[in-house]
């Protein structure tokens, strides 16, 4: 329990609503195959376009597939693809960023110029260009989005790497005769990964949005795998007769993105002072009260 306390204290400072939303999204995504009451791809044309009932909690789509199950499985699809996109993007970004931060000089200049250009072009256009050349498919989508996403983690990891490299313990290692490999893998890389991971959660929302957007355009997740953007575009022709099938996946996606965006904003704005809310006042009082308790224990 004592080990958990610092983590809990940190989580307590973040917006609670965002944490609950993200927790729900991750839990749904992880346990989706066991949570979905019905087979998400089972079609039954006789039951097509039904409203909510005991058998189908949120109704069925135009092919008679259970919307509730599809929404849950879509969380899984989204979570897995966002995870792989961010994983690939962070690997590229951290590797290039730390190399730039370690080496400095012209390597640094060149890589940061590339990062600048990559950040100034919208990620959708970069990923669409990659898909246009390689051809559509699941792994093309992951690769394309990762190529559009790595500049962000590249820039952050370069900044972190530069600050680590200027710390006294690196200098001490140099004096002791540590090899560049030991400094890089033993001290620079582990230190950078931790800090960059925190910022990556802030990116997860936009990454989920990008996956959904590509699927909406028919170039990401292919049917019959359920995905929110693709469910929405599937139901769009039936907007007039059955708007529920368009609105539900849209709201689910929006909720997830709002959760990640709020969390990202609170991470980015962590050090900017703002007026106290009642909750924060109560927390502060509780903390002050615990100080006196500590003293009396001693």
């Amino acid at each position, binding site marked *: 329990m004592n080990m958990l306390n610092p983590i809990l204290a940190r989580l307590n400072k973040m917006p609670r609503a965002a944490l609950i939303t993200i927790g729900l999204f991750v839990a749904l995504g992880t346990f989706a195959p066991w949570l979905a009451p019905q087979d998400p791809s089972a079609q039954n044309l006789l039951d097509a376009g039904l409203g909510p009932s005991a058998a189908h909690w949120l109704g069925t789509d135009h092919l008679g597939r259970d919307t509730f199950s599809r929404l849950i499985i879509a969380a899984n699809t989204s979570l897995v693809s966002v995870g792989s996109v961010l994983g690939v993007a962070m690997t590229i970004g951290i590797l290039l960023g730390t190399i730039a931060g370690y080496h400095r000089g012209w390597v640094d200049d060149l890589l940061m110029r590339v990062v600048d250009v990559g950040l100034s*072009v919208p990620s959708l256009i970069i990923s669409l*260009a990659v898909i246009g050349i390689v051809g*559509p498919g699941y792994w093309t989508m992951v690769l394309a989005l990762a190529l559009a996403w790595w500049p962000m983690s590249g820039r952050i990891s370069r900044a972190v790497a530069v600050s680590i490299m200027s710390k006294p313990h690196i200098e001490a290692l140099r004096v002791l005769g540590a090899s560049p490999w030991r400094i890089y893998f033993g001290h620079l890389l582990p230190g950078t990964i931790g800090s960059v991971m925190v910022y990556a959660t802030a990116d997860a929302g936009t990454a989920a949005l990008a996956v959904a957007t590509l699927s909406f355009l*028919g170039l990401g997740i292919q049917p019959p795998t359920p995905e929110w953007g693709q469910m929405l575009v599937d139901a769009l022709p039936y*907007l007039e007769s059955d708007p529920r099938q368009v609105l539900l996946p849209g709201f689910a*996606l*929006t909720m997830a*993105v709002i959760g990640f965006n709020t969390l990202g904003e609170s991470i980015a704005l962590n050090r900017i002072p703002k007026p106290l809310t009642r909750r924060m006042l109560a927390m502060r009082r509780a903390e002050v009260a615990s100080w006196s308790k500590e003293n009396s224990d001693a």
Partner: protein
Amino acid sequence: MIHFISKRLKHSLILLFMASVVCFTLVVSAPGNVAVLIAELRGAVATPGYVEQVEEEIGLNKPLLMRYVDWLGDAVRGDFGISYRTGQDVSADLANRMLVTGTLIAGSAVIATLISLALGFLGAFWPYKLPDRVSRGLALLGASTPTFFVGALMIYAFSVTFQLLPSFGFAGPKSWILPWLTIAVLPAAVLSRVVRVGLEEAMTSPFVLTAKSKGLGRTAILFREALPNITPIFVNALGTQVGLMTATAIIVEPLFAWQGVGDYFLAGVRFRDFMVVQACLLIFLTFFIVVNLVVDLAVLMTDPRIRRQWS
């Protein structure tokens, strides 16, 4: 000042050159033989002899550098070659589409500016009170809702439920409204935060204290002292958002069945029509570079501090 402009122009030209190299390499490195594609497109059987003839004709057997120079020369004169899929002239297809996308983006930029200024001022006028919270909530909602969902909601609300506006295609001036609004939502949300935060920061400066001591009211200070101060920041952010609007246009154009550059680019990506992808990519990149240049010059015009620094 002239020094700054010439330096900035040189910078843009280098960027343009890099963009053209990227577009060229993308297509050159694409898998598959282009000559075979074209030969099949013309309805002929792609015999080795015919393929060689096609290669000769479009200059594929020349050295890479020569091909780049040829291609760049054509592109500068506005000739982007022919589409591999339809066999039509890419430039002829693009001319009309650029007008459509340009009007879409320009209209949305105006709407986004108006909405964001209104929301931002609302928040700055009553900071941390109800209007500020509402404006902040709207900004979060606008920045987080997927553009295609915003479009679907607009169609559902204005075309299906109230039947006020046409949902797709071009039918009179009314049909501009929904695409404009859909594209404007995201930039309006982001820019309203820029206005709000910029105004708050400006309101803590010493010149505001001076204005207060002169007896000016909050409204007068906000409009006469703080607004000119945030103009450079706002112009800068607006430029970024206008660049991002090209990406939004790619989503919105097919949603409303509009024939713009975004829709053309998407079709090119879908059918792996490299010439179309290349041409659209070059247009998008040129657009970003030009917008950035214009923004830098506009900031120079609106910010006396920078102007003085460079004169």
